[in-house]
């Protein structure tokens, strides 16, 4: 599979379908895999497409490459959640599809941090080996998949120019690709690949997978709600939080150009801390931990795509994503909003007559 994908990428560059590529590439330590921008087909050799690690959400990187024109066409390899996050950023004018070719795929999932480290250290495991296990049978790897991935009900790409179909596709038979947009159709025309059928059994595998994930989500939701259904419990949940703001920094849809928590609003006068301590008995330092997480929920839960980067980045091992994804469900249901769709974000518009259920004291 990897070899076929590499050949396709090289072909895209040689035929002028793309001037540059953003692909997951093995880094200098021989283990870590990060999105990297390459402008020469010679670099494609180092790509690892279906590695089960998810170090960083590429949506934010694609936004860095497209918020202004570069004059070059770049094809970007992105997981379904990364594409949805990228779409959210496009809607906020922080990214653009004009010069990008979005390459989506049936998601290879990611292992949780520890399992991922073990996987990387076990030399001899290859991406093809991983793909060979999880695409015919997503639950068969025997390793701990990241919690966010294990409850994700959107494992297939939406809105991609090119979409790689892996579920049901035996790895030794090569990768199937379809076009999702006119730009994608044009590129496939340029590449002149063999045509064929959609991999057999793909729909069935996806249906069963989504069902299993939904059940897992509900299980997780039950546990997290029980652990956070009061402000006191929420304080316990975030008891180890050090306000490092990693979760915010790695979140692909945390869109504020300047976070309010970086401003003087939160440079409290020293006497203010004393007054709070007088009132509450103790005031944890750094302060405003709950305020920070509740604010982030208010600001971005409508756009949360459940990628799990927040949990991955937390130095205190707080399962941030599990809380944020259940709140995201509630917010997205309230506004009937699907992140990654073409609908305008809920707080960029309003109507003269709506949400009457919110108004009134009887």
């Amino acid at each position, binding site marked *: 599979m990897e070899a076929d994908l590499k050949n396709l990428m090289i072909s895209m560059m040689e035929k002028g379908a793309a001037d540059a590529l953003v692909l997951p590439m093995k880094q200098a330590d021989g283990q870590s895999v990060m999105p990297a921008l390459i402008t020469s087909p010679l670099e494609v050799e180092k790509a690892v497409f279906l590695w089960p690690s998810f170090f960083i959400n590429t949506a934010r990187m694609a936004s860095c490459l497209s918020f202004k024109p570069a004059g070059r066409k770049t094809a970007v390899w992105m997981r379904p959640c990364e594409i949805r996050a990228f779409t959210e950023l496009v809607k906020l004018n922080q990214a653009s599809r004009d010069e990008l070719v979005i390459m989506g795929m049936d998601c290879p999932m990611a292992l949780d941090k520890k399992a991922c480290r073990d996987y990387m250290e076990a030399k001899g495991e290859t991406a093809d080996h991983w793909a060979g296990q999880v695409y015919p049978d997503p639950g068969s790897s025997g390793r701990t998949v990241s919690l966010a991935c294990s409850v994700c009900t959107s494992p297939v790409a939406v809105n991609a120019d090119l979409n790689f179909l892996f579920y049901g596709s035996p790895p030794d038979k090569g990768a199937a690709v379809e076009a999702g947009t006119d730009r994608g159709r044009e590129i496939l025309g340029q590449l002149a690949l063999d045509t064929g059928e959609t991999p057999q059994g793909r729909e069935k595998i996806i249906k069963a997978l989504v069902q299993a994930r939904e059940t897992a989500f509900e299980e997780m939701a039950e546990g997290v709600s029980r652990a956070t*259904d009061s402000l006191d419990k929420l304080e316990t949940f975030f008891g180890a939080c050090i306000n490092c703001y990693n979760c915010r920094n790695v979140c692909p849809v945390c869109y504020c150009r300047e976070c309010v928590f970086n401003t003087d609003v939160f440079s409290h006068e020293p006497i203010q801390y004393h007054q709070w301590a007088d009132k509450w008995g103790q005031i944890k330092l750094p302060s405003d931990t709950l305020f920070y997480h509740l604010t982030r929920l208010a600001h971005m839960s409508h756009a949360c795509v459940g990628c799990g980067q927040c949990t991955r980045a937390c130095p205190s091992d707080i399962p941030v994503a599990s809380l944020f994804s259940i709140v995201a469900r509630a917010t997205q249901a309230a506004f009937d909003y699907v992140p990654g769709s073409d609908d305008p974000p809920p707080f960029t518009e*309003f109507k003269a007559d709506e949400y009457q259920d919110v108004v009134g004291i009887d």
Partner: protein
Amino acid sequence: MEKVDLENFEPVIIAFVCNWCTYTAADLAGTSRLAYPENVRLVRVMCTGMVDSQYVIKAFLEGADAVVVSGCHPGDCHYINGNFKARRRMKLLRSILPMFGIDRERIRLTWIGASDGIEFAHIMTRFTEQINEMGPCRPRPQSTLIKAG
């Protein structure tokens, strides 16, 4: 540390009221010598559209038992559409905060016009009664309790 005194519980209710409508109504209630509970602490803002979600969150974190945002009726907003924005924000907060034990009925949005002084007093009285019924939002010692009697 004082224990929470449920018998003498006096809710703390923060009301973000818009200058042009609800605050004027409150002022009218005052000049008409209409009483409404001291539990309601008014914060005057120019428009409900400027009530950031963070104001409401902060109020609850600081120990408020309820928050009401009140402004002009739709179509009457001094800034045309501020109240529409407020409505969307309150929809958001009423979806998120109940997940953390802050009952939806503690987070309210109302429209009270400038001449509705009587209605203002009635609504605030009724709301205070409702919150009194519901009890403290987050039972813990508060040095800002109004002593009864």
